[in-house]
């Protein structure tokens, strides 16, 4: 029922979103940790910056990316000169755009799970000879894993739907940057594209629903509390 070209669009979308979330996950966790635990001047500003893509018109985010990562932009120019590497009009650029758009959602979900870590358990780990790093790897991180997974799924779903920043930053190139929403938009412009729009829209609904259900399930699962918690 789906045409080969449509399967390609879905595969490209999954690749863009997968790479976007996979690479931004550690950064999102670091930011979430800083916002949950850090005490430093400018925390409010960092919080606002992280959340900016959530409230900014996506086309503005895309334009800012264009300025920063364009061939003459501060980051894009440097990438081009030192690594011979450009994100412009490439699927990697689409991944960057959707990662930035998904970041606030991921940071929020992770921050909640980091704030929910029982710090008494971290204290217990320290008295048992674990330094701050071992305490993090063996207690804090495992206890926040459900939140991390939920954030990843949520971010993945958000990233699959990314439209404005992507089309502004890397345009709508078939086979390179034409992800699901962009393909639906393109098909809408074509006479007789209705059937394709319907099929791709149904795929979008199915993927988004699956992601939401998965994320909710991960959040509820959590870990069992200790038997005498809260006495």
């Amino acid at each position, binding site marked *: 029922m789906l045409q080969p070209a449509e399967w390609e669009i879905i595969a490209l979308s999954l690749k863009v979103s997968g790479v976007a979330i996979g690479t931004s996950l550690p950064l999102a966790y670091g930011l979430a940790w800083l916002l949950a635990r850090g005490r430093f001047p400018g925390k409010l500003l960092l919080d606002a910056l992280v959340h900016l893509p959530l409230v900014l018109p996506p086309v503005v985010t895309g334009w800012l990316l264009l300025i920063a990562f364009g061939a003459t932009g501060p980051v894009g120019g440097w990438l081009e000169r030192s690594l011979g590497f450009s994100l412009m009009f490439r699927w990697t650029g689409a991944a960057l755009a959707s990662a930035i758009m998904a970041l606030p959602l991921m940071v929020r979900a992770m921050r909640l799970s980091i704030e929910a870590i029982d710090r008494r358990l971290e204290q217990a780990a320290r008295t*048992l000879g674990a330094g701050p790093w071992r305490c993090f790897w063996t207690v804090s991180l495992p206890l926040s894993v459900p939140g991390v997974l939920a954030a990843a799924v949520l971010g993945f779903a958000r990233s699959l739907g990314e439209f404005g920043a992507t089309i502004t930053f890397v345009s709508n190139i078939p086979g390179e940057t034409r992800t699901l929403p962009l393909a639906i938009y393109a098909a809408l412009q074509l006479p007789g594209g209705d059937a394709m729009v319907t099929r791709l829209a149904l795929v979008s609904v199915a993927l988004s629903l699956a992601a939401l259900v998965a994320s909710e399930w991960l959040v509820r699962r959590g870990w069992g509390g200790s*038997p005498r918690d809260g006495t």
Partner: protein
Amino acid sequence: MALEVDVTLRRGDRMIAARCTVAPAGITALFGPSGAGKTSVLDAIAGLVRPTTGQIAIDGTVLFDSARGIDLPPEQRRCGYVFQDLRLFPHRRVRDNLLYAWRRLAPSERWLSPDEAIGFLGLGGLLERLPATLSGGEAQRVAIGRALLSAPRFLALDEPLSSLDHARRDEILRVIERIRDELRLPILYVTHDPAEISRLAATVVAVGPLPGS
């Protein structure tokens, strides 16, 4: 090894003073009414709370000295702290809880083997269980085992009987008596119950607010 404590610490808007020498073997009880700050004193000894002034030392090793600016982090104090709320790691099985500290110890530091501890505390049947599935008495024994297997210089027990029913209390008291008699380890025991003190033949140290604060 004797543990020597002489600290003052702030708790909310009150100052607490604690001064005691915990004998190399046998039980020293920190005794006082609820809210007197007994747990804060244990937290200070374990390095989780920073006293305002004073010294904490065990057998020549200074853990804390405000005058000399020494404040060892908790992981270097080797304090076998059994928390009142136990704090077993909920995501790790009993076996991994027990071995959490032991696995990272240098062989020369270990003075108790897991097999000994498991036999001693009767934990053989619980190793594959998650903490959430344990009864109060079982969880208490696991917490004591986890602390003992960290090769501590001393043991700090915070109201270990407080949430147990009568039968379980006796079971845990017998375990504590065996630790006292067989392991020869300084034990600091927090309680507000005079009956526990007389049963364990403990030396008593009163904890309360600093006069005039």
